[in-house]
């Protein structure tokens, strides 16, 4: 298992596309969480996020600011990470190369999941670190006191962020296995995350009670409720307290386990053609 994790780590770390994903995650996160609101504040031009004011950009809001993107746009990037790690094995035909070296599919699959979940954790930590640096610079530039969140809040924030990131990553892996490739899983995954989720939340749920009820059970809204409970601004797309934080956390964890189990079952049962 440790050897398999090392193998998977080499595959991920040496892959330029993974670093591109991280760079995009960091730049999007900083741009929409800090730079645009700060520019709005500094320029006094108003706009939807300028009213959050400077206070929301300071270090004490680090947890909410860092995990606010995970229900939708950071989540999308995490899903792509999962698809790339698993779907590419189909696209390149490399499953046969791997599984003739180690035919124990559950072990190979578990190593893959551990590795992508560690990569997801690294991504979450990188977003926290970049956010911390940016908010610190803003606080210094504006002459505000630098107050960091407590270590407990930070740990809970990182843990919750990781849970959500891991859920989307493992969903990506599941889609990669189910659809045996990269393009279709990425496409369908993004349509769900970026379009269907929003349509359900903004159009269907207000009109139909059963859709509103369904929202409370779906992965995206639960991720949104979890980050909302930890201080993410509810004006961020996908962030809304549709259920309590505890319930949301349990639901997200349950989805993570279900996605992982389904992927493992499919990979184990199906022929590698």
């Amino acid at each position, binding site marked *: 298992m440790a050897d398999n994790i090392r193998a998977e780590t*080499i595959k991920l770390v040496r892959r330029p596309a993974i670093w591109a994903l991280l760079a995009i995650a960091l730049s999007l996160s900083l741009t929409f969480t800090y730079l645009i609101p700060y520019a709005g504040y500094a320029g006094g031009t108003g706009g939807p996020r300028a009213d959050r004011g400077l206070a929301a950009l300071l270090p004490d809001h680090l947890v909410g600011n860092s995990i606010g993107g995970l229900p939708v746009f950071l989540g999308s990037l995490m899903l792509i990470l999962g698809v790339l790690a698993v779907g590419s094995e189909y696209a390149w035909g490399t499953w046969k190369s791997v599984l003739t070296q180690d035919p124990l599919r559950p072990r190979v699959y578990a190593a893959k999941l551990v590795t992508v979940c560690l990569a997801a954790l690294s991504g979450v930590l990188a977003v926290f670190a970049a956010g911390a640096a940016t908010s610190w610079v803003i606080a210094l530039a504006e002459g505000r006191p630098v107050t960091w969140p407590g270590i407990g809040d930070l740990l809970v924030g990182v843990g919750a962020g990781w849970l959500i990131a891991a859920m989307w990553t493992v969903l990506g892996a599941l889609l990669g296995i189910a659809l045996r490739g990269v393009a279709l899983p990425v496409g369908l995954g993004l349509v769900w995350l970026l379009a269907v989720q929003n349509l359900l939340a903004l159009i269907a749920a207000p009109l139909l009670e059963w859709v509103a009820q369904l929202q409370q059970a779906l992965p995206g809204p639960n991720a949104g409720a979890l980050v909302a409970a930890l201080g993410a601004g509810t004006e961020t797309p996908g962030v809304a307290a549709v259920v309590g934080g505890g319930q949301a956390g349990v639901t997200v964890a349950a989805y993570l386990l279900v996605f992982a189990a389904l992927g493992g079952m499919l990979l184990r049962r199906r022929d590698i*053609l």
Partner: protein
Amino acid sequence: MEPMTAPVETRRLTKRYGTLTAVDALDLTVRPGEVYGFLGPNGAGKTTTLRMLLGLIRPTSGEVRLFGGPPGRLDGVGALIEGPAFYPYLSGRDNLRVLARHAGVEPGRVAAVLAQVELADRAGDRYATYSLGMKQRLGVAAALLKDPRLVVLDEPTNGLDPAGMADMRKLVRRLGAEGCTVLLSSHLMTEVQELCDRVGVIVHGRLVAESTVAELRGDRTLRLVAAPLEAAAARARSLLGPDAVRVTDGGLDLAVPPERAAEVNAALVGAGIAVSELRPDERSLEQAFFDLTGGNDHG
């Protein structure tokens, strides 16, 4: 002494895709230390069989045993199935490092197998930049990582130039000489004829023959060209019996051992027939293959 367990043994191995039977009750035995040629037209079920041996495809029914063990273990088994497949962004060396980790073998094996397939000087280059021949050699290198007792090679010379093909044959011979069992699928008759101790022929998913190359080619015969041909055929029939004589391509095929050449010659010359050619003849493996598979019908 206990008999050695067969490296490969299948019992009534079957794979169905809906109504299509790709592999049909296949009984295959590969003996220790032999180079076994697995022959068949395209679509006969060769690759499906090899994938079932390696656990990549689940049989519909039947049984696979490698070294007597149940399926799911590939210790000491290396394989190259249907062309090489690697991570294009990694170098050849890093690709092997990844697979060595998966296989749980010493990282030191990587340099050894790269040297074995003579790829060491390009091992640092990205796999995506490799020629077809280099990719194939890297595939063989990966198959050798576990220092295997059994190597399964599916059409290993596909895409190789003549020099690459010669290298590949050399490698297979060396593996065989070192006591490694090789299961080699191919559609190149000369390759199989040259390399393999025994051959299994698969057609429409069924094993239609399994024997040595020599047995498959059948008995050696005599080829005779003489004039007048009709008189020669009549004399030969009276000497050897009517069933032993066949008129083909302006000559006679005589189903008798080559040792009777002098006797046949004397009889024909004695009957005033001019003999212009008399030589031992042997069916090529290719002819034997076509006889078994029904000519060039690759359906």
